[in-house]
């Protein structure tokens, strides 16, 4: 079913505002999405009727708040085909990735000091962690830090000239303890063959983690079918509030990890010198959690489910195909990443000959077109393509073909402004 973009846009108040004196055309959803009114209503309703600390009180409000929080968990679990006890609330995807990284460093440190831990999480010299050259910093630096703390080695898959993973030179081996890869690159738009990568991980006895920040918001996902052991994404990129992310993990693994943040609500018994911990997910959720945000995110999920993720995916595909085609035909513009719709999502990066991305973005912004410029927290990708930065257009369900056309037209304006319109060979 084609999306009724006009009626969708009506749900997002911010989309009718002006910026710099012209109507806003928001094409930066890869950074963060806008929020429909129902999400804001749900948060507010929670605060105004049931706000209380969850899992801690026996009074009526506390029961209602706990119910709202746990119901949100079930809704979100259902969205990716998971069980509620596989869903851990974090503040963003970055925390979720770090949570897994700390499972390794905590287990390694405890092991070193003679405590019993699950050996799958113990790392030392000789072991390695495998990532890719197209990771967001959030799925790169935690592993660099983990290696610095354990003596393990960081390895990575490279990127081919057309923005795909180079699967030929495979760094995974028997000493690999974890393969951590991005599902869809936020800078290149590439969708990676995660099933194959998870298969290679498991063949070598390693665990597998998939960064789904740019996939869960944009396509239907059955997380078990991906073969991953862990996955994560942020609520704010899928119409949800800021301040909430999701870690999905196999329940058995979540229970086998040493805890990450410790404190209230994650305990079983506490003595001054020793404590034991609850089962997952409670075990991994210390302190008063993001209750209102969980309620808001569950509402965003229901909003997306009502539209249908297949429909969202198809709509973005149409926009992306149109965008790629227009950019391919634009002299002086180079797409960084796959230039066809095959195995790619809607985040499209490009450079413009003779104009720095900051200047491209600025001229686009002056025409109301909000896009992101920079290395998009994937600096190694820029190094790989020997560029300082890119400009990125990333549409979502509330954008239409007219938005894409306006964006491309504004690039042409930038070329005119800087006097770098290439002569087309005729």
């Amino acid at each position: 079913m084609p999306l009724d973009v006009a009626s969708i846009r009506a749900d997002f108040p911010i989309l009718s505002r002006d910026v710099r004196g012209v109507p806003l055309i928001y094409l930066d959803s890869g950074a963060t999405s806008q929020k429909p009114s129902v999400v804001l209503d749900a948060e507010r309703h929670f605060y105004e009727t049931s706000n209380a600390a969850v899992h801690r009180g026996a009074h009526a409000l506390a029961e209602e708040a706990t119910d709202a929080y746990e119901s949100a968990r079930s809704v979100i679990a259902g969205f990716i085909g998971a069980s509620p006890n596989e869903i851990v609330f974090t503040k963003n995807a970055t925390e979720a990735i770090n949570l897994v990284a700390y499972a390794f460093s905590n287990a390694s440190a405890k092991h070193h000091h003679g405590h019993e831990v699950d050996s799958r999480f113990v790392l030392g010299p000789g072991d390695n962690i495998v990532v890719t050259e197209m990771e967001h910093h959030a799925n790169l630096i935690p592993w660099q830090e983990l290696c610095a703390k354990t003596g393990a080695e960081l390895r990575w898959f490279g990127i081919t000239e057309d923005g795909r993973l180079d699967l030929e030179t495979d760094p995974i081996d028997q000493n690999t303890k974890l393969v951590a890869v991005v599902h869809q690159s936020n800078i290149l738009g590439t969708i990676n063959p995660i099933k194959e990568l998870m298969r290679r991980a498991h063949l070598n006895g390693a665990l597998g983690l998939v960064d789904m920040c740019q996939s869960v918001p944009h396509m239907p996902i059955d997380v078990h079918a991906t073969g991953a052991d862990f996955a994560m994404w942020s609520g704010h990129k899928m119409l949800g509030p800021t301040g909430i992310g999701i870690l999905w993990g196999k329940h058995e693994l979540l229970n086998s990890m040493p805890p990450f943040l410790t404190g209230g609500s994650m305990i079983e018994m506490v003595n001054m010198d020793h404590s034991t911990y609850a089962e997952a997910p409670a075990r991994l959720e210390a302190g008063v959690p993001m209750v209102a945000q969980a309620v808001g995110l569950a509402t965003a999920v229901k909003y997306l489910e009502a539209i249908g993720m297949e429909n969202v995916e198809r709509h973005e595909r149409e926009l992306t195909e149109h965008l790629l085609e227009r950019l391919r035909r634009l002299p002086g513009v180079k797409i960084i990443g796959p230039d066809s719709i095959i195995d790619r999502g809607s985040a499209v990066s490009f450079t413009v000959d003779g104009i720095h991305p900051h200047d491209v973005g600025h001229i686009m912004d002056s025409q109301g077109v909000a896009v992101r410029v920079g290395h998009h927290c994937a600096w190694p990708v820029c190094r790989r393509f020997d560029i300082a930065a890119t400009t990125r257009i990333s549409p979502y369900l509330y954008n239409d073909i007219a938005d894409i056309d306006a964006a491309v037209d504004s690039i042409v304006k930038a070329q005119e402004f800087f006097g770098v319109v290439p002569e087309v060979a005729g």
Partner: protein
Amino acid sequence: MSDDLYQEIILDHYKNPRGVATIENPLANSFQVNPTCGDEVTVWVGKDSQGRLQIAYQGQGCSISQASSSVMSELLTGKTPEEAAKIQTAFLELMQSKGLLTPDEEVLEDAVAFAGVSRYPARIKCALISWMALTDAQIKSGLTSESISLDRKE
């Protein structure tokens, strides 16, 4: 005031707990704790010469948890593992019913008094803690293969 929670039967069991503190040859025991409030219970399980259940318990806790231990031990002692399993399942269902189930008095006897508890999520754990301990002890003792799963959260 709170009539739906504090039934006469519950208050009676709370003030005059039934059951014994020890059994002769326990096959297993289980210690459970409610991480929210520190309530604790230990349940011992054994069988008599005809293979019928024997149950003893000891613990500290609120009226609901104390009464529930008492009702449970009275209700299940002397039952075959099969009879007990049926009652245990029925009680668990009742607790998860959010007040929507009319309990079968034939099966649950005094335990029907806990129907109101299912409307108070924070108290369900109180009513279930000894039943969880029993199930755990049964599994350890091999007296049943049934597992009653409960989410335990502080």
